[in-house]
């Protein structure tokens, strides 16, 4: 839906009128007094988001926002109830001082809950059940992430999401996600408001996110809140911990491939805190001594997270968070030639940097404001140089190929707690993108060779304004919102309506429907989808317009008690303007333009449409000796491109019909925890040669013959992982043992065509070979914590 600027403003005004109308509709709630405050962890002093707060005699519930702030209607002597998984239920009786301290924000402290094996399940009140208007949202806490056994013991928040329905790995072992049939570039990865463009380490096998400094990860598969936009399939919002405001502590771990360390503590008790978390792989340091002088090859990755927080006064808080991560692969050859050497160096590195500064302000009992300045950067550098000192005159040759993106964003968000049942959010974001899809330079001592410095750059402004109103009543709950987004190359603003409307059937059961539209103004050129560093980000252009998705969803939730949840989701998602690669396109070396030829990405890409639909079932047990979740997905993902497959629809690469995932944890003893993952996924659709043909009889080479696009079905993927966590008596250290792929299933990574030659009867055949990567992998990690 393309709009003129004037028309979009008119629509926005109409939308604001609607919000005002709803404001007055629910005006009676103002009869009570307003109490506001912030909820914090009693032990660490960190602000807690998502805490459900309700007054004893009222049916509606409010929820603390991302910074722990809430506002609720209540009167003197009312009892406030605070409830959050992992914390003891807090009951607080309001007295006169709570209503007098207008200049001071009330702080409510929630003590952490200890796991007891003889725990009795307590039935939750209806108000304590999770927010129903946030359908198609999946959340994992740090505890969830750490309890899931992972390959090589590396706790990975993004890979943990792959055990939830609707979210799957792109290929075996990959940290890249496909959400509801979408491709990896259709997911927006945010770390404390900053976009992380290439969220992968080790060529896509690990995500960039170190689990230690992460407090929560929210994945939106549909029904996207209006404050999010810019991607077609999902929003992955990762939030960092703030750091302990009470006491200094150190924790870390020593694993098979990496070690990690986290330091946190107060800069000023209860006022300011810091957190620094770092990790690095050391395989390169271990193998280097065993390599010859002639050839040295190594790889490592490392990252660091920093967070600083300070409370200026009871109503103003500043946050600063930053992430920097880098992968580096290099090869150095030193080959003796005559009395000198031939030196050949190859270097490939890629890095992400983010920096977010946030200012929270509480204006009054109802209005909360957050302003952010955000910087985000992704760079990839490839270089190769050769020195031939033994020649006279000596020769040299060097080339470099770089790409990247830099973003400067400013963002403002307001939250208004209109009543216990109704909340309004609005705000805007402005981002200046600097794309650097390709920089190529070549230098040589040979006179005839050209010296080239070929650079393609583009800067584009992206902006959006949004408004959102949500309500939660005894029978009905809703979330109505809209976002107007703008991208410089395309001129016309785009309207993105969003809504969720639900109905509480009976106590603890609800039905809801949702609709959301999203636009994506960036395209990722990646032929593998595995998150390789050579992937290139390019902006939408007139010839390669933005992608647009529309998703409708239906959800049924049943909370059996505070322990068991069942969620059924069905969805139907249309995407227009998604990209694919033209028949025969090549992206090795980034684009077709080797050397100084123009880099014409538009010529390599085609745009089409896709349909993704399916059903998702999730059953979750969140308390007790035995916890975990199991999910089943039945899904279809189909695309159609005029230039591919004769214009006929075909199954997408990520089309997997059945996916079954479980992640279970069993607390065997107070200090011993067993965990297991099992995953089964039907084979995905691939384009693999079905045969060969010839253009001459006496011609040993052949051309490949395909019966269609993505007609080949890969074998089913399944795997079992086991984990064992043993804690020390003082609870200050632990051992994690894990076995990845316990029964050594050789799951397909990809399929390639191979030749077999029979030299006796001079015959040849071409067959399709399965390539697998990950065998059974045991690992051990030692974790420690010092206070």
């Amino acid at each position: 839906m393309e709009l003129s600027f004037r028309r979009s403003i008119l629509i926005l005004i109409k939308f604001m009128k609607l919000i005002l109308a709803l404001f007055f509709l629910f005006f009676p709630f103002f009869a009570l007094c307003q109490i506001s405050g912030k909820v914090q962890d009693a032990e660490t002093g960190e602000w807690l988001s998502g805490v459900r707060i309700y007054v004893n005699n009222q049916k509606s519930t409010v929820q603390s926002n991302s910074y722990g702030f809430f506002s609720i209607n209540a009167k003197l002597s009312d009892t406030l109830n605070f409830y959050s998984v992992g914390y003891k239920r807090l009951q607080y009786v309001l007295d006169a001082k709570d209503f007098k301290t207008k200049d001071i924000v009330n702080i409510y402290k929630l003590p952490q809950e200890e796991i007891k094996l003889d725990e009795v399940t307590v039935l939750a009140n209806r108000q304590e059940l999770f927010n129903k208007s946030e359908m198609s949202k999946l959340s994992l806490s740090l505890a969830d992430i750490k309890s899931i056994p992972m390959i090589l013991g590396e706790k990975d928040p993004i890979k943990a999401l792959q055990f939830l329905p609707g979210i799957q790995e792109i290929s075996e072992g990959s940290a890249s996600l496909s959400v509801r049939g979408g491709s990896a570039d259709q997911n927006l990865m945010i770390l404390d408001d900053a976009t992380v463009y290439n969220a992968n380490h080790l060529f896509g096998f690990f995500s960039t996110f170190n689990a230690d400094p992460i407090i929560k990860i929210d994945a939106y598969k549909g029904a996207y809140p209006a404050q999010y936009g810019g991607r077609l399939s999902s929003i992955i919002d990762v939030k960092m911990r703030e750091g302990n405001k009470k006491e200094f502590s150190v924790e870390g771990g020593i694993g098979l491939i990496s070690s990690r360390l986290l330091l946190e503590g107060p800069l000023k008790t209860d006022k300011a805190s810091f957190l620094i978390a770092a990790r690095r792989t050391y395989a390169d340091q271990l193998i280097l001594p065993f390599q010859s002088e002639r050839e040295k090859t190594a790889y490592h990755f490392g990252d660091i997270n920093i967070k600083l927080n300070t409370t200026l006064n009871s109503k103003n808080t500043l946050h600063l968070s930053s992430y920097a991560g880098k992968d580096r692969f290099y090869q150095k050859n030193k080959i003796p030639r005559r009395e000198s050497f031939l030196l050949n160096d190859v270097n490939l590195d890629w890095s992400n940097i983010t920096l977010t500064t946030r200012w929270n302000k509480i204006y009054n009992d109802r209005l909360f404001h957050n302003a952010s300045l955000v910087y985000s950067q992704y760079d990839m550098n490839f270089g190769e140089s050769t020195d031939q000192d033994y020649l006279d005159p000596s020769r040299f040759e060097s080339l470099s190929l770089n790409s990247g993106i830099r973003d400067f964003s400013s963002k403002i968000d307001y939250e208004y707690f209109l009543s216990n049942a109704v909340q309004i959010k609005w705000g805007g974001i402005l981002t200046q993108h600097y794309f650097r899809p390709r920089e190529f330079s070549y230098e040589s001592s040979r006179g005839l060779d050209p010296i080239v410095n070929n650079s393609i750059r583009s800067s584009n402004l992206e902006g959006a304004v949004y408004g959102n109103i949500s309500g939660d009543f005894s029978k009905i709950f809703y979330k109505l919102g809209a976002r107007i987004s703008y991208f410089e190359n395309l001129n016309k603003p785009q309207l993105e309506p969003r809504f969720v409307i639900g109905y509480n059937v009976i106590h603890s059961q609800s039905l809801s429907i949702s609709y959301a539209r999203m636009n994506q103004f960036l395209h990722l050129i990646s032929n593998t989808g595995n998150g390789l560093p050579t992937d290139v980000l390019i902006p939408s252009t007139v010839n390669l317009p933005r992608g647009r998705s529309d998703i409708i969803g239906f959800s049924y939730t049943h909370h059996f008690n505070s322990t068991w949840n069942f969620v059924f989701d069905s969805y139907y998602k249309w995407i227009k303007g998604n990209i694919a690669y033209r028949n025969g396109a090549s992206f090795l070396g980034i684009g077709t333009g080797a050397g100084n030829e123009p880099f014409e990405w538009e010529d390599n890409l085609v745009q089409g449409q896709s349909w993704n639909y399916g059903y998702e079932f999730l059953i979750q047990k969140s308390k007790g000796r035995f916890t975990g979740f199991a999910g089943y997905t039945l899904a279809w993902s189909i695309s159609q491109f005029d230039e591919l497959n004769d214009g006929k629809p075909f199954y997408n690469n990520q089309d997997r019909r059945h996916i079954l995932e479980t992640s279970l944890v069993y607390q065997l003893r107070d200090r011993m925890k067993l965990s297991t993952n099992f995953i089964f996924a039907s084979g995905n659709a691939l384009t693999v040669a079905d045969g060969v043909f010839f253009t001459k009889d006496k011609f040993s080479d052949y051309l490949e013959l395909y019966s269609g696009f993505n007609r080949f079905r890969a074998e089913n993927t399944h795997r079992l992982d086991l984990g064992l966590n043993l804690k020390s008596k003082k609870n200050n250290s632990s051992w994690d043992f894990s076995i990845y792929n316990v029964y050594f299933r050789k799951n397909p990574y990809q399929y390639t065509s191979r030749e077999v030659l029979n030299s006796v009867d001079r015959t040849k055949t071409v067959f399709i070979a399965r390539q697998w990567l990950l065998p059974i992998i045991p690992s051990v990690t030692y974790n420690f914590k010092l206070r």
Partner: protein
Amino acid sequence: MRLLIVFLTLCSMIGCVKVEPFKEIPAYSVYSILNPADSIISVFVGRTFRTGEFFSIDSGKAIANARVEIRNKSTTKIIEFDNSSKSYLANNSGFLRAGEEYYLSIEIEDEILEGYTLIPELPTLKLDQAEITANSEGQIQVFWEKSKLDNSIYRLVGSVDLRSNVFALFYWDQDEGVWETSDKLNSSNVIKSPLGSFNFVSSSKEAFVKIDLFSFDENYDDFRKKENVFQLRSDFSRLFESPVIFNSNVSNSIGIFGSYVVSSLNIKMMKE
């Protein structure tokens, strides 16, 4: 619960996007490229091999018992199998003419394979400018004219005569697409091409340069480009490339029945 069932049913109904069921690969392959300048017309008819099926490296891919004919508006030419080349051959003898339509028909057992090509018009390559400067740098500029209805793909290739001491700086062969129509270049029903430039360095007093203008029919050009891309690939590079899927313009088979013509200009140049 009733609402749930209704919604599931609705989703299932709107969810029906048809994907065509799997089809067997065609059993035959055909390769025939017509050029009026050739003295022999050649048609290769072979069989295809499924993955996992063994084929002889030396021979045995051709099918010898097919009935092959090529016809134009007025004449039908029966093409016979030649055992030495393992192809169906016939003398051209003026049968192939630029600008004419040709139909291929192959009967193998119960199957009939049919193809069609329009041999492109022979364009007239014209010299705009040719010079060798005093510092031995040479440049040739050429252009041609085409009919507005002509959809052929043009490609210029410059080559130097080995007898002359000429070093080509680069070949002018950028054209992989149809020339765009430009109002400025229009004259009635004819479009003039932009100038094609061929640069070289000549250390001798004279230079012999040949410029060829190839004009391909669309199907052959597509096949030829894909063939080049496929053959240049390595096992490693394939991991980063989309598959090369050949289109067939011969029914019930995989292959190509295409055509092209070449217009040449031989230029002898003297240093100023």
